[in-house]
């Protein structure tokens, strides 16, 4: 073993002469560290962390509020949109119904007019036809009388007329 004053004799850890010194300074150090930590450092860091946690919570709450407001606004917007759409639909329906009603009235009127005109036209056509038939009968009678007269046959006027009338009716019919 080395005997020099600067060399360790055995294990310095087992040199009991230095124990009081080490223990004394250890106690001093630990007490000082405890004071620094418990009086200054830990409350300060704790308050910083608490403050940050508070700020974060508050921010999250605020964000939550904003989100909710945005959702509400969106819901209101959608509701307004739906309402407007429903209103437009209703107005359109109403308009359509009105127009339909007007149209129905107009169509009915037009139908009636057309029917009236048709009836009138048919009546006039009938008249024309009748007068035409009469004219044909008169012409035929006259022509028959003339022809009979030309043949020199004195025929009974009434018989000729009846014959012609029967013929015209049958021919026309």
């Amino acid at each position: 073993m080395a005997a020099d004053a600067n060399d360790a004799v055995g294990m310095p850890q087992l040199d009991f002469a230095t124990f009081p010194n080490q223990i004394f300074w250890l106690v001093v150090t630990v007490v000082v560290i405890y004071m620094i930590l418990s009086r200054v450092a830990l409350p300060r860091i704790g308050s910083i962390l608490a403050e940050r946690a508070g700020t974060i919570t508050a921010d999250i709450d605020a964000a939550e509020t904003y989100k909710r407001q945005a959702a509400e606004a969106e819901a209101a917007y959608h509701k307004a949109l739906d309402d407007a759409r429903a209103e437009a639909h209703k107005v359109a329906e109403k308009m359509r119904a009105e127009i339909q009603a007007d149209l129905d009235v107009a169509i009915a009127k037009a139908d009636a007019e057309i029917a009236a005109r048709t009836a009138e036209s048919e009546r006039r056509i009938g008249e024309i036809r009748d007068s035409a038939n009469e004219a044909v009968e008169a012409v035929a009678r006259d022509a028959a009388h003339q022809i009979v007269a030309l043949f020199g046959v004195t025929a009974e006027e009434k018989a000729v007329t009846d014959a012609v009338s029967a013929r015209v009716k049958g021919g026309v019919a």
Partner: protein
Amino acid sequence: MAEANGGLQIKPMDQFMVKPLFGGDTVGIFTITNVTLWMAMTVLAVTLLMVVGARGRALVPTRGQSMAELTYSFIYKMIEDVTGRDGVRFFPYIMTIFMFVFFSNVLGLIPWSFTTTSHIAVTAVLALSVFITVTVLGFVLNGASFLRLFWVDSAPLALRPILALIELISYFVRPVSHSIRLAGAMMAGHAVAKVFAGFAAALGAAFFIPILAVTALYALELLVAVIQAYVFTILTCVYLKDALHPHH
């Protein structure tokens, strides 16, 4: 032993010597020694990290403040996880232990520095204070029912006295293993690093091989320094849990 092999002068234990800083040979109780210096450095480091680092009180932390906050939350969460919510009132004590052990270990890795936690006197005082605190606290909080810690209810009746004996022994071995683990880990790493460094000096041209080994060892030592501080603290929490909730 160094004389035995001639040129190879490796004295791995020299670095652990307690020496007076300002002359004199005797180490009295109030002598300013390298222990004092490096413990003061620990205080300084704690102050730098936890007080100066967090002085800005910024809502968005700076780098220093972020480190202080991470350390704070790390220990806080450890206590909460291991002991439950009622262990949180011991937070300043456990934080003190962690900061002291952590910075002693890490500062001890600086070349030519002195590792205070490599001394059994230091770690034994820390471990004994934890042991005594836990024991007293256990009896104060739970009264005589704290002794049920040693009486394992879930075991068969015949085995319980034997288990109680084993539990009792392991309870009293706690401060021993608690302190020697830390001191031994610190001492071992530093002594091995010193031995390898001595090889580098003795090997001449092949010096770089031990230097590489020392570099790798140094990285491992850094890990060990942090893990030992963590382990010392978490074991303190585990022992504290026994005092707070002695029933298995």
